[in-house]
C-alpha cells in the first residue's frame, strides 16, 4: 500500500546554524509509527527513568532549590470572606529584624486586593531571612477591615436577597442553553421518565507539591524555578508583568509534584515572589502552605444537576433535559459538557448557570466538567435501567454510539464478571453487601506545537532537549523510549533534558496533550537525526541511507545484516562533529478523541454505611501506548482521584463565618493506601491512531460507577457526592421506609 505523504518544514542545526528544510512525513490518518509488533521499547512496561531519583530525594523540586542569600516569602491573606481593607500598617513588620521586603496593596498594581472577596485572598506579602520570621512579620502587619456581607453556600447565593459577591451584578449568571430536536415532543413519546437531582461537591486539586516559586534577579534578567505545568506560560506572564523581553526571563522546572490543572502561568504567588526578590535585592522562595493551597489555588466547581430523562420501553432514549448550576467561587466556569454525556439522545435541552460565591476561584481540574457530567448521567441511566427493568449494561450498549466503548463494555464486563452481580439491588442477607456499577467517559487529548532538539555526539551519547515539563506523567521517560526506539539504543542511554525555557518550546501540560504533542516532535526530530547519521555511515557500508537500520546498538544494512557497524563506531565517523537537529511536531503521529469505561465492585456495610472499594476494571483507549507502565500509572492515579471524589473529598465552607473548616489533609480526606481497590487497567490498543493522551480520562467515570455499585449492593441511591457513611445510612433509611 502506498502511504500518503506530505511535506513539512522543520528547522535543523547545521554547523551551529539553524536551517529550514522540508521533509516528507506520513499524512494525517496514516500514522508513521510503523509496525508496533517489531518495537523493542514502545508499548513495553518501562519503569520511569527518574523514579529512583524521585524516591531517594535526589530529584530536586522547586521546594528543594536553595540559593545563597535566599529569603522566604509569605503572603498575608484576607481574614474575612468579604471585606474592604481600610487601613494597613506594616511599620512593625518592617522593623522586625530579618524582614527584608514588604509589599502592600498600594505598592503594586493589580495584585493585591483591598476589596477582598474570599477568605484567603492576597492582601500583602513579606520576605524575610527565615520562614518563621516571615510568618511573624505577617502577624505584625496591622490590617483594619471593613467587614461586608458575604455568601459561601451555592444555594444561599441564588436567593434573591443574597449578599452580592460582585456588587454590580447578580450572583447567578444568565443561563447558557443548548438544544437539539424537540424535548417536549420527545418526552411525549417516552414510556418511562426518570427525574432526579444530583449534587457534586467542590474538590480541590491537592497536588503533593504545593504551588510555589523561587525567583532570582541578575540585573535585568529573571530566573525562576516554578512548580508549574507550563514553563513557557510562566515565562510569558512574568515577561509581560515586568515588561521584559522573553529572552530575559528563564523558567526552570526539572521536577514538579503534580498540578492537575491548577498550575499554569506565573500566578499571583509567582509574581509576588519575583516582586519581593526585586525589592529585597535577593532571591526569594515562596511556597504555599497546604491551607493556602485549599483556599486559593483553584478547585473543581460544584455541580447541581436537575435531570429528566425519557426512554421507550425497549430502552431507546428519546429525550433528556438538564439544568445545571454550580459555583467556581469568585470565578465562573462551573459548566459541564453541554449535552447528554456520551449517550445519543435525539431531543435534549441543557441549561447551565454559574453562581458566584465568596470562595476561592475554580481552576481547570483533571477533565474539567467531565466527572460531574459523568456522575449525573451514569446515575440517571442506572435509575432508568431499574425503572425499565433492563440490565444497566444493556441500556448503555443500546444508547452509546461510540464503537470503541461498545468493545470496551464487553472487555470490562468479562473481566469483572458482570454476570456475578446482584440481580436485585440490595438483595441478600447479612450486613455486608456487594454490588457492581458502570461509569464511562469521553475525552479529546491530541497535541501540537512542540519543538525538540536532538544531539548525537561523536562518542555515541545522545541528548534530547525539549521545553516541555514532566508533571508526573512520565514525559521524560517516553522521550527516552521514542528516541531509543529510533536509534536502536536503550532508554537509559538517552539523556533527556526538559523543563527549561532555554530549550525548544513546547506547550503547557494540560488537556491530556503532552504525550501527543511531545511524541511526534521527538519522533520526527530523531528520524531526521538518524537520517543524517545514515548519510555518513551508508557509503562506508556500501549501501544507500535508505537501506540502513538502527537496532540493538548497531547500524546495519537491512538486506544484509552482516554489513554492520556498532552505534558508537557509526557516530565516531561524524567528521563534521555532533549531529544537532531541531525538529517539531508533525501531523501523522497523533490523534484526538478517546473513550473509556470503568466497572467497579464495592462492599457496603448496611449498618455503618461504610463503603469498601473492592475492584475497578478500567478499560481505556489512548491510541498508541508508548510506555505501558506509566500509562497504567495514569489509570491508577485517575481512578484513585475518582475514588476520593466519590467517597471522601469535600471542600467544606462554614456558612456563618465563610471560612473553610477542613483546609488541611486530615479533614479534607484524600485516599490512603487502605482505600485503594484492586485496579485492573486495560488498554484498548489502537496503535494505528498514534499517540492520543490519557492524563484526564481515567478520573471521569469512577464516581458514577461507584454510586451505581453502591446502589446495586444495598439498594440505596445516593445522589450526592461524596458518598460518606451518613449519606449511605440516610439513603438506606429512606429505602426501608418506602418498602416498609
Amino acid at each position: 500500500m502506498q502511504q500518503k505523504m506530505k511535506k513539512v518544514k522543520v528547522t535543523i542545526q547545521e554547523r551551529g546554524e539553524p536551517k529550514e528544510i522540508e521533509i516528507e512525513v506520513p499524512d494525517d490518518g496514516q500514522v508513521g509509527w510503523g509496525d508496533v509488533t517489531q518495537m523493542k521499547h514502545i508499548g513495553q512496561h518501562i519503569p520511569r527513568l527518574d523514579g529512583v531519583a524521585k524516591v531517594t530525594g535526589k530529584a530536586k523540586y522547586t521546594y528543594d532549590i536553595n540559593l545563597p542569600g535566599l529569603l522566604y516569602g509569605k503572603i498575608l491573606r484576607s481574614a474575612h470572606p468579604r471585606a474592604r481593607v481600610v487601613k494597613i500598617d506594616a511599620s512593625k513588620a518592617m522593623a522586625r529584624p530579618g524582614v527584608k521586603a514588604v509589599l502592600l496593596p498600594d505598592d503594586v498594581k493589580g495584585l493585591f486586593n483591598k476589596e477582598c472577596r474570599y477568605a484567603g485572598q492576597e492582601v500583602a506579602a513579606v520576605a524575610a531571612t527565615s520562614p518563621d520570621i516571615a510568618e511573624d512579620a505577617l502577624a505584625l502587619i496591622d490590617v483594619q477591615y471593613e467587614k461586608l456581607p458575604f455568601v459561601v453556600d451555592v444555594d444561599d447565593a441564588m436567593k434573591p436577597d443574597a449578599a452580592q459577591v460582585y456588587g454590580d451584578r447578580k450572583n447567578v449568571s444568565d443561563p447558557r442553553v443548548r438544544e437539539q430536536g424537540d424535548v417536549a415532543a420527545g418526552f411525549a413519546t417516552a414510556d418511562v421518565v426518570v427525574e432526579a437531582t444530583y449534587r457534586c461537591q467542590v474538590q480541590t486539586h491537592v497536588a503533593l507539591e504545593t504551588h510555589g516559586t523561587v525567583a532570582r534577579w541578575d540585573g535585568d534578567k529573571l530566573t525562576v524555578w516554578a512548580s508549574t505545568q507550563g514553563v513557557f506560560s510562566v515565562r510569558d506572564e512574568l515577561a509581560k508583568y515586568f515588561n521584559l523581553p522573553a529572552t530575559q526571563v528563564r523558567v526552570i522546572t526539572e521536577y514538579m509534584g503534580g498540578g492537575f490543572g491548577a498550575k499554569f502561568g506565573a500566578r499571583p504567588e509567582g509574581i509576588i515572589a519575583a516582586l519581593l526578590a526585586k525589592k529585597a535585592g535577593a532571591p526569594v522562595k515562596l511556597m504555599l502552605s497546604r491551607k493556602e493551597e485549599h483556599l486559593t489555588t483553584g478547585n473543581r466547581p460544584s455541580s447541581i444537576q436537575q435531570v429528566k430523562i425519557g426512554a421507550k420501553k425497549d430502552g431507546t432514549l428519546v429525550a433528556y433535559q438538564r439544568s445545571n448550576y454550580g459555583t467556581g467561587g469568585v470565578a465562573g466556569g462551573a459548566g459541564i459538557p453541554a449535552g447528554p454525556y456520551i449517550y445519543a439522545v435525539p431531543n435534549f435541552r441543557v441549561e447551565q448557570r454559574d453562581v458566584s460565591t465568596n470562595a476561592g476561584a475554580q481552576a481547570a481540574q483533571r477533565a474539567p466538567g467531565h466527572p460531574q457530567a459523568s456522575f449525573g448521567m451514569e446515575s440517571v441511566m442506572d435509575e432508568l435501567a431499574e425503572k425499565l427493568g433492563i440490565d444497566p449494561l444493556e441500556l448503555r450498549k443500546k444508547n452509546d454510539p461510540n464503537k470503541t466503548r461498545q468493545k470496551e463494555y464487553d472487555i470490562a464486563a468479562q473481566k469483572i464478571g458482570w454476570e456475578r452481580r446482584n440481580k436485585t439491588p440490595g438483595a441478600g442477607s447479612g450486613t455486608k453487601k456487594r454490588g457492581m456499577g458502570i461509569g464511562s467517559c469521553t475525552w479529546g487529548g491530541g497535541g501540537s506545537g512542540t519543538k525538540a532538539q536532538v544531539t548525537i555526539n561523536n562518542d555515541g551519547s545522545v541528548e534530547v532537549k525539549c521545553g516541555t515539563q514532566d508533571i508526573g506523567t512520565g514525559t521524560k521517560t517516553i522521550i527516552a523510549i521514542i528516541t531509543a526506539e529510533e536509534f536502536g539504543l536503550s532508554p537509559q542511554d538517552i539523556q533527556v533534558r526538559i523543563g527549561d525555557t532555554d530549550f525548544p518550546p513546547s506547550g503547557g501540560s494540560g488537556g491530556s496533550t503532552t504525550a501527543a504533542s511531545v511524541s511526534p516532535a521527538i519522533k520526527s526530530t530523531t528520524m531526521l537525526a538518524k537520517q543524517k547519521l545514515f548519510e555518513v555511515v551508508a557509503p562506508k557500508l556500501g549501501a544507500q541511507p535508505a537501506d540502513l537500520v538502527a537496532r540493538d546498538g548497531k547500524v546495519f544494512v537491512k538486506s544484509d545484516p552482516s554489513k554492520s557497524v556498532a552505534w558508537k563506531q557509526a557516530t565516531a565517523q561524524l567528521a563534521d562533529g555532533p549531529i544537532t537537529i531541531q525538529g517539531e511536531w508533525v501531523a501523522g503521529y497523533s490523534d484526538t478523541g478517546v473513550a473509556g469505561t470503568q466497572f467497579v465492585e464495592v462492599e457496603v456495610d448496611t449498618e455503618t454505611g461504610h463503603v469498601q472499594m473492592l475492584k475497578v476494571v478500567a478499560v481505556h483507549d489512548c491510541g498508541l501506548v508508548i510506555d505501558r507502565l506509566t500509562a497504567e500509572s495514569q489509570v491508577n492515579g485517575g481512578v484513585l482521584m475518582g475514588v476520593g471524589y466519590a467517597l471522601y473529598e469535600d471542600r467544606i465552607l462554614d456558612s456563618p463565618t465563610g471560612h473553610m473548616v477542613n483546609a488541611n489533609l486530615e479533614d479534607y480526606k484524600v485516599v490512603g493506601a487502605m482505600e485503594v481497590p484492586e485496579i485492573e487497567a486495560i488498554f484498548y490498543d489502537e496503535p494505528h491512531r498514534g499517540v492520543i493522551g490519557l492524563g484526564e480520562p481515567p478520573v471521569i467515570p469512577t464516581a458514577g460507577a461507584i454510586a451505581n455499585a453502591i446502589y446495586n449492593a444495598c439498594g440505596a441511591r445516593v445522589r450526592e457526592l461524596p458518598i460518606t457513611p451518613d449519606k449511605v445510612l440516610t439513603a438506606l433509611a429512606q429505602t426501608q421506609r418506602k418498602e416498609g
Partner: protein
Amino acid sequence: MQSFAYVNATSVDKVASLLGRTWDEAQVIAGGTDLVGELKEHLISPKRVVNLKTIPGLSYIRQDAVALRIGALTTIADIESNPIVQKQFAALSQAAMVIASPQIRNVGTIGGNICQRPRCWYYRSEDFPCLKKGGDRCYAVAGINRYHAIFGGGPSYIVHPSDSAPALMALNGRVKIMTSTGPKEVGMDDFFTLPETSVRRENILKPNEIITEIILPNPTPNAKSLYLKVRERQSIDFALVSVAAMLTVVNGVCQEARIVLGGVAPIPWRTPDAETFLRGKKISEAVANSAAEAALEGAKPMRDNAYKVTIAKALVRRAVMALG
C-alpha cells in the same frame, strides 16, 4: 509557631517544678504528634515546652500478679505489638491497631494519646476563636457538626478523639498522676471531664501534673474484650463512632459488662443502662439489640450527626454478640 524555650525533663519528681501554674506558661511534649500541630496552628503558645522523652524508665509494659502497668511514654506501636496486651487486653491492642497511621503510632505515646486535644475542626483552625480557645461561642452549634457529640455536649460539643481511652475505660483502667505534692491514682472513669465543668480542658490534669503510668487490672477468667471502630477512611481517620467493651460471660449468661462508646461525647462515654441491662441476661440477638437501644437512650444528635446513633447501635450490638 511562636518561639518557646525547650526544656528536657530528667526525672518524674522534678517535672512539676519545670511546669507552670498556667497552660500558657508551660506544656509537656512526649511524641509531639499532637502538640506540634497545636503549636503550628497557634492554638497554644506556651513559653516553655517540657520534654518528657528524656525521663528514663517511662516506657514499659509490665505485668504482675494484679495488674498490667504501662509507662506513659510507651509508644502506641509497642502496645499494639505486645503479646500480653494482645492476649489478655484485646480491647487495648485492637484500639492501638486502629490509631492514626503506622508512622504516628511509632512516635505517639499512650500518655499523649489520652491527653491529646480535640479534633473539632473549629478548634483546630485558628480562624475560629471558639469557647475552647477562650472565645465567646461554639461554632459547631450553628455550623457543620457532623463529627460532633451526641451525648454530653454543651457548651462545647467536641468528641474525645482518643481510641485508647475508651478501651482503657472498658478495661477498668486507672492512671497514675504525678502532682506537685506526689503521685496519685485515679480511675479512668474519673479522669475525663465534661465541658460543663471545664470547657477549655478535657480532663482533671493541672498544668503542673503529668501522667506517669496506666494500670489495668488483670482480667478475670471469663472476661473478654474488644474494640470496634467505624471511620470514613481506613488508612487514617478518627472514629465516627467506636465501642470498647469487656464482658464476662459464663455459660452464655453475662455476669459483668463494661461498654464504652468513643466518638460520641466529649469524654469516652460509659453506657450504664446497657451494662445494667446485660447483667444476668443470656446473650442473644434480641438482648444485644436491647442493649444497643439502652446504650443510645438519651442521645441528643445535632443537625448533622444523627447517623452516629445508627452506627453506635450497630457497634454495641456487634460487640455484645462477638463477646457473648
